[in-house]
């Protein structure tokens, strides 16, 4: 047992672990936002609400259908992705030709509807979601105690993040996607069905949010408000990282989560606002964001 600046190592590493977990969620959500923004030029304000829907789908599956965590881990993102497909096909699609701000306003309205509906149905208090049997317990790492489930969340989100990065930057499909982001008309002229690709991109982006929701369910309680506070921090993360790069979104998300954890150890009062302060500083020094480019 040692201590750093009067802080015992257990507390320090405990908070860093929490920070890393928060950071994983920031990374997953800002990744989805960046993918959607790149293709649709829409800031998806409904992202936080769909993250909440993902967690609720998992909870509903468990409560009413007896489907456990592992089933939910597959089914909930698919369900959220399908919701996304429907939203894109019926509503968002009509707004591509007008100012991008309308996409933001539409998804904001959708976020209010989702949140309001779940709140009306299930109230504001959270519903507990049990940790799956396989991941109960924890490891003693010598300097700290690591609950298995938290370790799993970090590993799983890292795998998903880097998998997405690989799919977009290193595969043929990803190359189409990047090309369509640059110049949709030209790509369509080459015989690629861009409208379908746009729909699938939105579906995939929100499915990532749904997946984050399932991962979060056993850690935080499943509550209708879990998405709205998170999403604003994710917006700040996106402004800091810049939406230009996938890797930027991942690295910024994890880094800011860690920084938030550190702040909780040394100056807890500021932990809620540290991300916003960093955002202000980054805007002063490098307005395009750490990994971004002016557009």
């Amino acid at each position: 047992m040692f201590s750093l600046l009067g802080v015992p190592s257990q507390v320090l590493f405990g908070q860093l672990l929490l920070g890393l977990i928060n950071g994983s969620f920031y990374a997953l959500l800002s990744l989805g936002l960046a993918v959607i923004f790149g293709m649709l030029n829409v800031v998806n304000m409904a992202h936080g609400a769909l993250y909440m829907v993902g967690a609720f789908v998992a909870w509903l599956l468990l409560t009413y259908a007896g489907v456990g965590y592992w089933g939910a881990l597959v089914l909930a993102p698919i369900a959220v992705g399908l919701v996304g497909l429907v939203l894109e096909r019926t509503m968002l699609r009509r707004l591509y030709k007008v100012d991008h701000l309308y996409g933001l306003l539409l998804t904001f309205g959708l976020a209010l509807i989702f949140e309001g509906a779940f709140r009306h149905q299930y109230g504001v208090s959270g519903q507990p979601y049990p940790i799956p049997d396989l991941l109960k317990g924890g490891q003693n790492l010598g300097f700290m105690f690591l609950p298995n489930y938290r370790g799993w969340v970090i590993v799983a989100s890292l795998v998903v993040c880097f998998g997405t990065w690989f799919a977009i930057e290193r595969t043929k499909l990803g190359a189409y996607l990047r090309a369509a982001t640059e110049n949709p008309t030209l790509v369509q002229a080459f015989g690629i069905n861009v409208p379908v690709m746009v729909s699938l991109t939105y579906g995939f982006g929100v499915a990532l949010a749904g997946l984050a929701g399932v991962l979060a369910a056993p850690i935080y309680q499943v509550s209708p408000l879990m998405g709205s506070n998170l999403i604003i921090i994710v917006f700040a993360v996106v402004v800091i990282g810049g939406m230009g790069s996938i890797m930027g979104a991942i690295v910024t998300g994890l880094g800011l989560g860690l920084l938030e954890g550190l702040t909780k150890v040394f100056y807890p009062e500021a932990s809620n606002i540290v991300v916003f302060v960093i955002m202000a500083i980054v805007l002063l020094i490098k307005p395009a964001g750490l990994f971004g480019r002016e557009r």
Partner: protein
Amino acid sequence: MTAHTSAKTPAGGSGRSSAALTVRGSATGTALAAAGFLLVAGLAPYVLYPVFLMKVLCFALFACAFNLLIGYAGLLSFGHAAFFGGAAYIAAHTVKEWGWSPELGLLAATVVAAGLGLVFGLLAIRRQGIYFAMITLALSQMVFFLALQLPFTHGEDGIQAVPRGLLFGLFDLSQPLTMYYTVLAIFVGGFAIIWRTVHSPFGQVLKAIRENEPRAVSLGYRTERYKLLAFVLSASLAGLAGGTKAIVFQLASLTDVTWQMSGEVVLMTLLGGMGTLFGPVVGAALVVTLESYLAATSLPVPVVIGCIFVVCVLLFRRGIIGELLARMPKRGG
């Protein structure tokens, strides 16, 4: 949207004759519209509940201030609740804890909102479009957390039982009608400032920036300064509205600094018509009426508000007044 959109109808709708007049067309039209509005607003407290009307007026001023940015400079701020709610705390604190008179409290609220607007503006105008919206949203969330944690705001309780006091040491604001006419005067003053701004050379430059910023830059305008000034002006008036609301309801609470409040003012402006002078007033009146009506039913308010958002964005992006103006025959001007 063109520069011809300055036609207006009084909120109460005092007949078709004044509705068809354009500001450019005749100064008497403006005078008629203003007189009609004042007549309706002046008599309204004898028909409707004054507290309800004061709420409408506070939100109408808030929405008009917001509209100055989105409608005339093309900047979507998603953080205006920070000015509205932040100023409400300042007004409530100075009046209740420091014993300031209401006019000084409102002045302090406006000045603090202007300062906050300067800080937000300096940061946010470094980015454009949707980034601007996200930055203002994030900064206002910071104000929310400050309001939650700072000791003087009393966290979840807010500042309660704020005395209304004597305006200029003469008028007793605890009388509902005195309070109402004070709020009306504040609204008319704020609206006049916005009207003057929109119809000044400064307002024309703002519209030029909204339509085509690179072109405005190439014409030699330092667009950042124009945008910043518009932002500060909008924030100050939003602060004035928030401070007034705190005095009227004798309460400053967390509700007014949440991002939902920022969204609500966007909705009021969108519903009434962005870039029209009277649109936000109509939008604010409708939303406040709807909310007080819904409060008596079991329907969840956010769902209804969200549906209106979706319908507005998909079906009538010009808003109520905007659609009316678009359907009216154009008069030479």
